[in-house]
């Protein structure tokens, strides 16, 4: 008896020392719901990686790492066979099987936010308890990119109450059973999300030792940083560019900054303004904007000046297309186009969406002033901004785009394709630029299974829009996290900005 107590005591002590870390993370906004399918947003996916597991996930180098899927292979052009792990338990205690995967994918196809991504999937078949076949509508080169969004949900747990309704008071929005490294202990919307380590987590190779993880939304950049500086929280993101110098100077706090793939651009509306239909005007505007200066002064170097849409990890990236700044040439082009005296345009930008968005819009307006384009700038909070954006109310609009599939073609589909309300193509094409050649190239790239030919097709598009100066690319936003120095963030935070909290190791 005594021996058993001692052993038990040792286990308890042992587990305490192994899993002692309690971490508080301050982020800018908390997920709107406990239902991972309710909103497709960065915050939502970050939450999903903590409480659920995807079939596969990205490694730091951009390749895919098996998670709940152990292997996958193409059966034919339109079918992929996926084999699942057989040792995974949900937080509810149910075992994860093929039924759960079928349930999850079908539910994703019903989700307002995710259905665009999952439309390509025709159906899912269960082959045996740990095997499924996924059928696509046509050959699709980005299958794995999509499987990285399949966070498997517990079919038995949600059975009969699996509605996925935006802003709805559904069962799934308040109750959760996933397979992930953390279990939700308490959630007060807008104030805190408290997670505790899943003791029965299947991934025993993970070195993660965070026992409790608390996510606290803090809206204001300076308050969030203050919380880190005063020690109220351990990790914060994002960090405003202006504060980065301060963070790096502060002893006991370290900054991780990783090149991101979100591109921020200005779109010049060609239907609203006749002037923008002249390629020389568009080129002049591109030349008048000094992207490097913006990155250096406003983003404090935490971004990459962009001359094209695809960031360097993307297949469409063409290294030669660098941002150009030449004021004289810009003035010359304006003169040639007959607009030496300039003109007046309206411009809108969000003021709480992208890193330094408002300041960058102001700076861009000041730069355009130098080629006599007078800009009436209005900045709005994101909720109001995107409503205005949908109505295309200003001549120049700012937009940031993160490709959910981490592939160039996603950017082209939404930002460059001719606007088509039926297919949803060009939904964010506020340039209202329409080029049938590019449209067919985009369709082609979406079916091309040969990797080399696909890369070639994507780069073709990138060059075409560069020559046409369709948009003004500004920069690729960096992903910046700051933490107390004893927290090793670098191998947890990645270029996707989906930190894998389950792997976080803290030595205290």
């Amino acid at each position, binding site marked *: 008896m005594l021996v058993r107590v001692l052993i038990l005591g040792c286990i308890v002590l042992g587990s305490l020392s192994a899993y002692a870390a309690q971490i508080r993370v301050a982020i800018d906004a908390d997920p709107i719901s406990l239902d991972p399918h309710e909103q497709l947003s960065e915050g939502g996916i970050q939450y999903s990686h903590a409480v659920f597991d995807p079939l596969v996930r990205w490694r730091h180098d951009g390749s895919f790492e098996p998670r709940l899927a152990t292997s996958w292979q193409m059966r034919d052009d339109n079918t992929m066979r996926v084999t699942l792990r057989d040792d995974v338990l949900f937080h509810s205690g149910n075992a994860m099987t093929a039924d759960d995967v079928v349930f999850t994918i079908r539910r994703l196809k019903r989700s307002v936010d995710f259905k665009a991504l999952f439309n390509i999937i025709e159906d899912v078949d269960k082959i045996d308890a740990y095997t499924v076949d996924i059928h696509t509508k046509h050959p699709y080169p980005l299958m794995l990119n999509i499987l990285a969004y399949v966070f498997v949900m517990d079919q038995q747990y949600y059975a009969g109450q699996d509605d996925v309704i935006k802003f709805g008071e559904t069962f799934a929005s308040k109750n959760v059973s996933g397979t992930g490294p953390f279990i939700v202990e308490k959630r007060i919307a807008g104030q805190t999300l408290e997670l505790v380590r899943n003791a029965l987590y299947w991934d025993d190779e993970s070195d993660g030792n965070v026992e409790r993880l608390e996510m606290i939304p803090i809206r204001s950049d300076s308050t969030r*940083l203050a919380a880190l500086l005063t020690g109220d929280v351990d990790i914060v993101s994002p960090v405003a560019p*202006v504060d980065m110098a*301060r963070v790096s100077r502060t002893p006991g706090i370290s900054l991780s900054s990783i090149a991101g793939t979100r591109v921020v651009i200005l779109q010049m509306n060609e239907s609203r303004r006749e002037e923008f239909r002249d390629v020389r005007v568009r080129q002049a505007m591109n030349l008048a904007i000094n992207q490097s200066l913006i990155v250096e002064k406003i983003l404090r170097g935490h971004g990459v000046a962009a001359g094209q849409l695809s960031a360097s990890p993307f297949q469409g990236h063409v290294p030669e297309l660098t941002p150009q700044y030449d004021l004289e040439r810009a003035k010359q082009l304006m003169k040639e186009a007959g607009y030496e005296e300039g003109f007046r345009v309206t411009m809108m930008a969000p003021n709480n969406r992208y890193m330094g968005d408002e300041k960058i819009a102001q700076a861009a*307006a000041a730069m355009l002033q*130098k080629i006599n384009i007078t800009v009436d700038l209005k*900045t*709005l909070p994101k909720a*109001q901004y995107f409503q*205005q954006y949908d109505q295309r109310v200003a001549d120049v609009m700012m937009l940031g785009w993160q490709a959910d599939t981490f592939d160039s073609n996603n950017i082209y589909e939404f930002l460059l394709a001719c606007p088509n309300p039926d297919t949803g193509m060009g939904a964010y094409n506020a340039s209202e630029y329409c080029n049938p050649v590019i449209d067919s190239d985009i369709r082609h790239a979406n079916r091309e299974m040969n990797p080399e030919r696909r890369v070639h097709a994507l780069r073709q598009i990138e060059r075409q829009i560069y020559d046409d100066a369709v948009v003004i690319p500004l920069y690729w936003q960096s992903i910046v996290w700051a933490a107390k120095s004893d927290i090793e963030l670098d191998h947890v935070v990645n270029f996707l900005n989906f930190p894998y909290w389950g792997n976080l190791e803290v030595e205290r």
Partner: protein
Amino acid sequence: MNILHRPLIPTSTKPTRLRHILSAIRGDKLALFALLIFAFYCLVALLAPLLAPYDSSSNDFMDLLNAELPPYWQSGDSRFLLGTDTQGRDLLSVILYGTRLSLTIGVCAVLIQLLLGVCIGLLSGYIGGRLDTFLMRCADIQLSFSTMMVAIVVLAVFQALFGNAAYQQLAMLMLIIVLGIAEWPIFARIIRACVLAEKEKEYVDAARIMGVSKVRIMFRHILPNTVSPILVILTIQIANAIVAEAALSFLGLGMPPTQPSLGALISSGVNYLFSGAWWIAVFPSITLIILIFVMNLLGDWLRDHLNPQTGKGVP
């Protein structure tokens, strides 16, 4: 924001009022000092385009290359005495223009308050009865909602309504109208109280018997007697309007960043406090505080001297 609960009892007024005030202020060093500073502010605001080292409408006013230079005595850069903001604008110029904007908004808003207040106050006090009850209830209700609350709500709606760049031109007008409408009851109440007090006096009865029209009685006989209490409230109301405008801009509901008032400047500067660029927030803050301080001092002084019985400090 401020509630004057008891009617001020007006003193008898004479044409030499102004001279009287001036001679009195000469005897009070603090008030004189405040008056001088206030006059300086007004002058600076009027002459901002001439005084500012840089022209805010010029193409070269904003240059990112000059962003965030510290003040002259730290950077040694003689082009920018108080340093530059994050867009590379000369802080001194921006503050001069900002002061001009803040004062303009404050004065215009109070003029609207005054106009509304005088009309409603005269009507209410002179006609009396149900109209009086109704108007004063409206005033009570209007005042019970703090100006800030009303302004926050109304401006948020305006922003959504005008949505596009047109709002930029309208922002100033909106601020003036909102702040103007929100505080008319303060003037209305005082005027009404004066009217009530004057109405009973013999000379008004006499005028009425002589067949002078109501409007004429109100404007020619009663209104001049309300000048003193109005003067007292005026300075303080302008100061309050400026503070309210600053607070609204701080919340992001005021002037756009391209055309900053003092409040908008402070608001954008606050984000740079942590990073060490203290001057962007500190200089506009000091400018604003001094302006409000001298106006409050003047208001207090006027109250003490024009209404000896009520030594009341109403904020």
